[in-house]
């Protein structure tokens, strides 16, 4: 399956899961900021991707930063703790977090979750090897 086909299936999943129009689901759209996803939607997206692509999708693999949000040791009063920040740096080594670290409000993590990130993940799962 090539990347365009993957994108189209991901687009269909997001249209169903988030109730958005397909032209809103662009490659660089952010799930929370642009498409209005809330925390439960991430699970919904995982469930739908699993059905659509016939693969098991561990949520912490697809959304490595998002799964931090549900860990009481890593989040306190809506911000990542020092331990949470360390964990985040480890999980997204290629992302510039210098701005985020000044005010590690978890709502700002939103920009890390894009449509393109999902397509890249699925592409890696299907077409690695």
């Amino acid at each position, binding site marked *: 399956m090539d990347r365009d086909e993957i994108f189209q299936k991901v687009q269909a999943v997001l249209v169903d899961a988030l109730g958005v129009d397909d032209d809103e689901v662009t490659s660089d759209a952010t799930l929370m900021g642009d498409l209005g996803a809330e925390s439960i939607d991430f699970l919904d997206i995982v469930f739908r991707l699993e059905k659509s692509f016939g693969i098991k999708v561990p949520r912490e693999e697809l959304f490595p930063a998002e799964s931090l949000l*549900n860990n009481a040791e890593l989040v306190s009063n*809506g911000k990542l703790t020092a331990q949470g920040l360390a964990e985040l740096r480890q999980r997204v080594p290629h992302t510039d977090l210098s701005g985020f670290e000044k005010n590690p409000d978890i709502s700002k993590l939103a920009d890390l979750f894009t449509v393109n990130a999902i397509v890249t993940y699925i592409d890696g799962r299907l077409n690695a090897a």
Partner: protein
Amino acid sequence: MLDLPFVLTWARMRWIWIDKFVEFESGRHAVAVKNVTLAEEHLHDHFPGFPIMPECLMIEAMAQTAGILVGEARGFREKVVLAKIGKAVFFDFVRPGDSLRIDAQIATISPEAASTSGKITRGDQLIAEIDLMFSHIDRNLAGKKFPDENFVFTGTFTSLLRDIALNHPRPAGQEMESG
């Protein structure tokens, strides 16, 4: 299969909007019945002279049916909370005297959550299609703390399972009957 003494451990009141379960296949699907009566006071206002069941209460009926199905799948250990209405489409009015069959299926269940698909029928007629998601809230919501006690599965909802539980154990090979 349901364990009756275990189920009856819960003995506190909770708002119940369905009447009973008639089918219950653990972790897979359940069917509940809701009988609509003009004795329900909200029908006098919704609407005067034209009583019809509000659609939001059809969603509530599905949420209770599917929520108990999801709760039972994990032995009622999780606090199961309605998190998302993925789809709710209605095809006809429901009036006093109608008997609704609420059929819920678990589509996916994981440690954190479950998604269900369901339909409501009256006889052979499709009334609604309702897909829901439930959160196991102790495993979500950014480390918020909830009481240890399971405040979701507390009440007489267990009586809804009377036909299912009381018939247990069934002779080997005998399917549950509906209706």
